[in-house]
């Protein structure tokens, strides 16, 4: 485990009520593994106790943002503020429920002029929850 709970705040600017990642398990090369335990306080939980799909997109985006924050920290650079530039080929297989623990693999790809390509895949246990490509625009 590299970072958990409030330690994540060192890596990204997002704060309550929209913090959608609570663990970085490991990071090596272009790939990091992150996590989120879904609580009833989660901003994207609907009346049926399940997460709305945009919450999964935000989880994956913040996973990449925190990973980039980790890399900036290691390089002694200031913390980047990242925005989602594009979501492509996002697929939601199931909406996670309160109590589920999500684990996500994010892989950073090509980068041009502050726009980074990335892919993310989120699972709950062995079950695929969502996957997507994304572009993160860093200011």
């Amino acid at each position: 485990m590299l970072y958990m709970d409030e330690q994540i705040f060192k890596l990204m600017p997002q704060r309550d009520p929209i913090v959608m990642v609570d663990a970085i398990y490991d990071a090596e090369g272009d790939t990091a593994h992150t996590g989120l335990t879904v609580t009833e306080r989660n901003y994207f939980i609907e009346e049926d106790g399940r997460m709305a799909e945009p919450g999964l997109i935000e989880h994956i985006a913040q996973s990449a943002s925190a990973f980039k924050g980790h890399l900036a920290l290691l390089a002694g650079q200031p913390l980047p503020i990242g925005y989602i530039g594009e979501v492509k080929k996002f697929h939601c297989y199931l909406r996670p429920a309160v109590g589920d623990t999500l684990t996500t693999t994010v892989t950073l790809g090509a980068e041009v002029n502050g726009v980074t390509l990335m892919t993310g895949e989120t699972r709950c246990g062995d079950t695929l929850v969502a996957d997507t490509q994304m572009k993160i625009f860093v200011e």
Partner: protein
Amino acid sequence: MTKEEIIEKVNPLLAEEFEVEESEITPDAVIKDALELDSLSLVDLVAVIEHTFKVKIPAADLPTVKTFEDLYNYIESHQA
């Protein structure tokens, strides 16, 4: 890979990725115009080339790659 092989491989991939007709991809055509690239989709071009040919185009080199002819030459001279 010869230049002809590069052209044969990359044109259909670009046509698919950027949803344009392959006939629009001619050696003299300006890439940005033909593929309707903007600040966001430029990285898609770089990713397609990197993934297909293992050729990285650094941001500093991008201004030299204007036409498809430039792109074919770049891939040909930088391939492993």
